[in-house]
């Protein structure tokens, strides 16, 4: 199984480093949630990812003001595309994770893995 996690380096990327990461996780560091493109998320699925997470700052806590909001909108749009091509849109999720939310990061990843295992069983 492979989970691709797009992380804002100001927040989720730091949270990811607090504690053990499951082997399934590939972290992709971005300068801001606003950098993530629909294309990146779709390409991740195309290259074999079972789940994709886009983890950014809280929306009103983004260094670039609208970066997190834009990331969320793009995830919503990409989910629609996934739906159309027959991939469960729940495989793609956006969550806000601030830099000091290590436990939350691990829970989101664990929930995703759990969900994927259930879906494939």
């Amino acid at each position: 199984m492979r989970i691709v996690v797009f992380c804002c380096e100001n927040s989720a990327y730091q949270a990811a480093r607090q504690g053990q990461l499951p082997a399934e996780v590939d972290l992709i560091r971005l300068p801001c949630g606003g950098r993530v493109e629909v294309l990146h998320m779709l390409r991740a699925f195309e290259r074999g990812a079972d789940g994709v997470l886009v983890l950014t700052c809280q929306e009103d806590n983004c260094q670039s003001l609208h970066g997190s909001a834009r990331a969320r909108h793009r995830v919503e749009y990409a989910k629609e595309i996934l739906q159309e091509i027959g991939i469960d849109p729940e495989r793609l999720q956006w969550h806000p994770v601030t830099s000091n939310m290590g436990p939350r990061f691990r829970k989101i990843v664990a929930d995703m893995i759990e969900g994927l295992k259930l879906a494939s069983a």
Partner: protein
Amino acid sequence: MARWGAFICDGAGVDAASLAGEEVVVTTTLPSQPGDLACKLVGIGTRYNLDGGILIGVVPELVEDLLKDSLRQAGLDPFRLVLVDLRGRDAEGKDREIKAAFARARHLEPAAWAKSEVEQRALIIGGGAAGLQTALSLRQLGLPVLIVEGEQNLGGRLGRLDGLFPYDEDPKGWIQSALEALQDDPEVEILTASNPLALEGQVGDFTLTVQTPGGPVTRRGGAVVLALGSEVRWPAESGLEPGPRVVGLSRLDELTRFRLHHKKVAFLLDLDELGSRVGTLSALRGALRIKDNWGSEVHILCRHLKVDGKPLESMYRKARDMGVVFFKYEEFPKVTETGEKVFLQFQDPDLEYVVVDEAYDLLVVEEEILPAGEVLTEAWGISQPANVRLYPVETNRKGIYMVGCCRDEMDFPGAIQDGTVAAGEIYELLGQGALVYEEDMVKVQTEKCVFCLTCVRICPHGAAEIDLVQEAAFINPAACQACGMCAADCPAQAIVYKAYDNTGIMAQLELGGR
């Protein structure tokens, strides 16, 4: 082909032999002390004529900038340093983390640094306490300033106070000494009775157009400080009308200078649900003066008394000790007015069965304090939302700061703090006389740009501009704060963010699953 070195920190638990690949010309282990590490890295980089390095360790981010700095000093390209953080990874995770780093490294292009001269002058709009403090601090740091003030005199709301001031300083005296420090200084220009018309340019080189009594003038500066102050507004929605028996808190200063024979005075605070710390401060100060000067019976009605600031709790206690009675109302009091008296009817929640029905000679009402100049900031695309990353004085745009009451309700020490902090930030930005930035960090491929203005519209930092000569968008490298939003949103894929370009991101995705 690029020549890469792989550097493995002590304790990373990675076998150097496993990294052998064609582009790796040297692998070595490194000490963990940041200083030693930087030295060794630079030494090896120079000796093997490397193009870049992959640093594998635990928490290498902590030393990232330090290393880049050392590399730059050694004449190497700091932007071809890829860090691999192995914290929290098992053997398989480590392997994938390293592979992804190599994938990214192959696509990294060297960075070019540019340096541009800046205007060192700060353009301060607003000559109240916060604006004056910014100017004073900047002058002490040796930077020139321009102060633009709409009124005839400097001082703002502080200048209209007389005695009703709960701090050690005397407001008039403070303004006087500020003026003395500023007015004969050749590096200070003060434009009074003047209003800003337009602001153009970017950090390091702004142009401000000001309407002065003698006509419009333009001034250039490297930073802009908005010290626009606040406006006092009568709380009309409360249904109260100002009159001889009902006055606003802001009029209390002039009123209490006279000897009046009001036997009973009431203060009504928190009309807009929450009220302000500043309002409570003036009310307490006013109540104490009324007690002193008039000997009246004073009642203060509020929802929550604000005590979270230095003199507040002690003033509150002093007021109680002098016999001021406080009521914490839950339901807004019923106010009726006859020619001679103001009647307040309210329930005292501390005595639930008692409805107090009192006649007062004077009712002092807390007004709303609203930030001033919102029209201006909106027109110029400057904002300071309640975002902790901008606290205290930064705005969405680099080189533009907001200080004092135009960004939050604030007392005098708050305004002083804002002014000082802003001056410190400007000194850091402009003190060296030049800005250093990475050229083409975010680059517009002019041939692909279709002039759709998406980047101009979405750039949160106002860094995207239109270059009429090139007929394409242009990301101002000095103002850019490297979020990459424009690159993500450009419909023509014309914008490339070098360190995080699509090829690099895609290469990391190419690795595939197991």
